């Protein structure tokens, strides 16, 4: 039996594996580029200039550290454990995605690659990439499923203002997974001049570990902030999981704290039993998509299934390999939250705290509310509020029968 805490410090191994998950399942044309990225990242990770520059940008440009907020009204409404929100919605561009976008864009520049491609679902990673590229003077092309272009028009306009080129993707299911396919096709074609700025802890090694490293600021800060305020660690840490970048960033620094329970919330859509959901870890089984072995929603023939979620950012049939590992090892637990439950939590947080959360983050808020009710006032639930909800107002209005 592998000791999870020790193992987590050792993983990924030199083949990019977290236990059975991860790896580099990619066309040969990309192997050299992925190896080059691995070397460049390994070097930059230990380089003081790079780390100082990134830390300065995260502080002065992106607004880190983000605050940790005790949601007293929400806590009172639940009548149980204290609920703390890690306010990634207050980071520049309105979500945690900027942490990784700045890190990778700086790295691309260091590698001499001035053309950046990115995929986006909800548009938050697209906006973060376009922002980082505008500031660092890089060309930016964002692939976005044509369905998502329709349901996230605000973010499409923001990307265009930032002078990124947004390319709608009409193939397959016209959502995030197809945007990733198209971005990989672009990368295969332009690999020598282009960096693929992946937005989550998915893809071939070294992406899952690199994106995790860029996102662990979330958990590191929250852990220190909570220790200072409460003088103790949380009992539970909750975060939503699509590809899984905000949740890995939040969980990772708590993995060695054995008494802290880690719970990831996936999109249950219309209910896992209906088949219309994106609950990969709850309802999928191991397979290979987009360069990594991980849990995958697939049919009996190994074809990747269509997914559904009210939140475009969670609407993805795969999940980061490290989450598959945390599930397999039992260190983290994964549950699902339906569209309806997420919407209720969205309205509750607006009403009680004056915070409009992203629909993605609302999944974590929903589970936190249910959990807090079952706990005592001396217990603490820490929630990653990964983004703000301005981008979602059309969907919320439509789902709630309201007019804008």
């Amino acid at each position, binding site marked *: 039996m592998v000791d999870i805490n020790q193992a987590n410090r050792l993983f990924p191994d030199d*083949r990019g594996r977290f236990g059975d998950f991860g*790896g*580099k*399942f*990619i*066309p*040969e*044309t*990309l*192997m*050299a*580029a992925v*190896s080059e990225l691995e070397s460049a990242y390994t070097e930059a990770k230990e380089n003081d200039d790079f780390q100082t520059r990134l830390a300065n940008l995260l502080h002065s440009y992106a607004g880190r550290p983000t605050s940790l907020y005790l949601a007293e009204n929400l806590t009172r409404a639940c009548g149980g454990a204290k609920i703390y929100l890690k306010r990634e919605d207050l980071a520049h561009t309105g979500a945690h995605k900027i942490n990784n976008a700045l890190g990778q864009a700086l790295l691309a520049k260091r590698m001499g690659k001035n053309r950046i491609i990115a995929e986006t679902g909800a548009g938050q990673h697209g906006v973060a990439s376009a922002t980082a590229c505008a500031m660092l003077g890089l060309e930016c092309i964002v692939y976005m499923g044509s369905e998502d272009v329709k349901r996230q028009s605000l973010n499409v306009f923001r990307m265009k203002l930032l002078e990124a080129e947004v390319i709608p993707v009409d*193939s*397959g299911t016209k959502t995030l*997974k*197809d945007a*990733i*396919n198209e971005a*990989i*096709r672009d990368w*295969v*074609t*332009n*690999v*020598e001049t282009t960096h693929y700025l992946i937005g989550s802890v998915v893809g071939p090694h070294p992406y899952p570990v690199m994106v995790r490293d860029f996102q662990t600021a979330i958990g590191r800060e929250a852990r220190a902030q909570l220790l200072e305020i409460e003088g103790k660690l949380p009992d539970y840490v909750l975060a939503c999981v699509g590809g899984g970048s905000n949740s890995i960033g939040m969980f990772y620094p708590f993995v060695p704290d054995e008494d802290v329970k880690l719970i990831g919330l996936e999109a249950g859509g219309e209910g896992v039993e209906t088949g219309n959901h994106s609950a990969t870890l709850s309802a999928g089984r191991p*397979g*290979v*998509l*987009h*360069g990594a072995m991980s849990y*995958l929603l*697939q049919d*009996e*023939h*190994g*074809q*990747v299934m269509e997914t559904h979620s009210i939140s475009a950012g969670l609407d993805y049939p795969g999940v980061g390999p490290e989450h598959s590992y945390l599930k397999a090892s039992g260190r983290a637990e994964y549950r699902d939250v339906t569209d309806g439950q997420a919407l209720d939590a969205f309205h509750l947080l607006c009403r009680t705290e004056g915070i409009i959360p992203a629909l993605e983050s609302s999944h974590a808020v929903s589970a936190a509310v249910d959990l807090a009710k079952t706990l005592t006032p001396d217990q603490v639930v820490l929630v990653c509020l990964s983004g703000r909800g301005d981008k979602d107002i059309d969907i919320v209005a439509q789902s709630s029968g309201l007019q804008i």
Partner: protein
Amino acid sequence: MGELRIRRMFEKVREQKRPGLIVFVTAGFPDMDATMELVPALVAAGADAVELGVPFSDPLAEGPVIQESSFKALQNGTSLEDCLDITEALRGQIPDTPLILMGYYNPIYNYGLIPFAQGCHQAGVDGLITVDLPGFESDHLVAECQSHEISTIPLLAPTSTDESIKASCAEASGFIYCISVTGVTGAREQVSGRSIELLDRVKSNTDLPLAVGFGISNRTHVEEVGNTADAAVVGSALIRVMLESPRKELVERTSRFVRELAGVTLPNQGVV
């Protein structure tokens, strides 16, 4: 049997001092019956070997033409099991022609590596090309294929490192598939000059025959490839003819195109 059939095919084209012609068709496109009719007809028209594309929901190395054929084949319900059944049914009709499955790893992984290798052996599959399984990750599958006499054919690209070429050649059998461009599949105006440099690097690591694919779309390209390699692979250009042909004329039009590619008749001016 697999390696033997492939070796004999390359020996034959070498003796005849001509480039071999390998054609790619997506299994189940435009429908399963069409695949059953097409493959023997294309062999009769001059194809030396056939790659049967196993459709996948996320074909991330394919250009728009093969994507479309793969999408339609999936709509027809074509599974990996069906591809094995098709191969088994074709085997009796074309006993000497190498039949090679080409696809993505997940359907194979889902099927189970051991049952898959057994199924290939039983169906008479000669070789396997797995697009998203570089040498680095392929140990288990290669071992299962070897024990069932299925050739595992690696893809190498202009961006491949010398280490990767060396490692892939060391565990390859059958032939080596050299990608002519850095890019996705799809017909192109010219054969990339970069393939020549790649072929030189691969030749210094193996005596196996070399095939060149991606972007080969007419007889001139096939002849060009013949100057430096053993065979040319034509996929997207052929699928495009299939996409443009009414079902009734499908076999006739695609056979005509393959005869052109094989140099059996003079190509029409301007037909690409």
